[in-house]
C-alpha cells in the first residue's frame, strides 16, 4: 500500500490517518435472535400477520406496523433474485477475489437477503441461480458467520 501511495504523492508530505469509532450497539430482541441463530448455524426470520416470513427479520410488520415476535427457521439454501459483479474487491469486502453482491431468497423465506456470492466467474451468475451458505467454523453471532454463498453443484 505504501508503495502505491509513495508514487502517487511523490515530492509531497503525506501520512495515513485512520479515524475509528469503536461502537458497541444494542441490537434488540429480533436482530439479537437472528444473530444468535447465525452463531448456531441457523437462519431465522419473523412471521407477519398475513403469513409472510421476512428474512432478514424485521421488528415490525411492513404491512400493518404491528410488532413481530414469531421467529421461524429457513433453509441455508436459496435462489438469487438480483446481483451485481464486483471486479475489484475493496479492502473491507468479504472476499479478496472478484465476487457478486446478490439478493438471496432463502428457501422458506418471502424476502431476499443481501450477501456475497462466490461464483468465480460472472458467467455463472443469473437470476434463479441456486446457492448455499458457506458457514464459518468459528462463529460469533454476526452476518459474517456466513462467509458467503456458493452455487450449488450441478445447479442449472
Amino acid at each position, binding site marked *: 500500500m505504501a508503495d502505491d501511495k509513495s508514487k502517487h504523492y511523490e515530492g509531497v508530505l503525506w501520512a*495515513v490517518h*485512520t479515524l475509528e469509532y469503536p461502537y458497541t450497539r444494542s441490537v434488540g430482541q429480533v436482530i439479537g435472535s437472528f444473530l444468535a441463530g447465525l452463531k448456531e448455524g441457523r437462519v431465522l426470520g419473523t412471521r407477519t400477520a398475513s403469513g409472510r416470513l421476512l428474512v432478514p427479520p424485521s421488528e415490525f410488520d411492513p404491512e400493518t406496523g404491528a410488532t413481530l415476535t414469531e421467529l*421461524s427457521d429457513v433453509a441455508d439454501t436459496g435462489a438469487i433474485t438480483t446481483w451485481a459483479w464486483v471486479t475489484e474487491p475493496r479492502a473491507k469486502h468479504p472476499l479478496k477475489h472478484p465476487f457478486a453482491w446478490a439478493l438471496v431468497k432463502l428457501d422458506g423465506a418471502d424476502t431476499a437477503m443481501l450477501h456475497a456470492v462466490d461464483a468465480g466467474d460472472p458467467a455463472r451468475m443469473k437470476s434463479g441461480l441456486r446457492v448455499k451458505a458457506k458457514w464459518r467454523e468459528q462463529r460469533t453471532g454476526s452476518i459474517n458467520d456466513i462467509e458467503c454463498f456458493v452455487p450449488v453443484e450441478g445447479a442449472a
Partner: protein
Amino acid sequence: MSEQKTIEPLKGIVTPISLDYTITPGQATARFLKGIMEGRILGQRCPKCRKVYMPPRGSCATCAVPTEEEVELSNRGTVTTFCIVNLPFYGQAVEIPYVCASIVLDGADLPFFSMIAEVPVEQVRMGMRVEAVWCEPSERRPSLESIKYFKPSGEPDMPYDSYKEHL
C-alpha cells in the same frame, strides 16, 4: 425447517467503523513540519496585522492575505490556560493525571496545545513560563508530537496583562 426452537437473543455487537484517510498538509504546514524535524519552530507573520501564526496556515484568517514571511520562534513560552485531565478514556496515550495547556510561544501571537510535565499537576498555573522538551533527533517525526511536552523554565511568571489577548 419451520419448527420453532427457543433461542437466547444476543444483546449487542461491536461494530467499529473506520475511515482511512491519506492526508497531505499543504505548503505552509509542510515547511513547518520540516522545521520540526530540524528542531526548529517556524511561524509565519501576517504582512497586514503583523500577527505571527504558530502553527502557520499559509494565510491570515483575519486579514485574508497570504502569510509568507517566516519567523523562527523561541522554545520558550507562557501558559495561558490549562486543564488537568483526571478521567481515563478510550485511546488515552498518557497516564492520568496530566496537564494539557494552551501555550503562547515568545514571538507568536496564537497559542497552541501541548502538555506540561516535570512538575506536579497542582503547581501548573496561568502565566507560568515553560520550555519545550524535544524528542531525540532520531525519534523526531514530522508532527507536533516531536515536542514531547513543555516543562517549567524557572523564569518568573508573566503578568496576566501580557497574555490576556491570547486566551
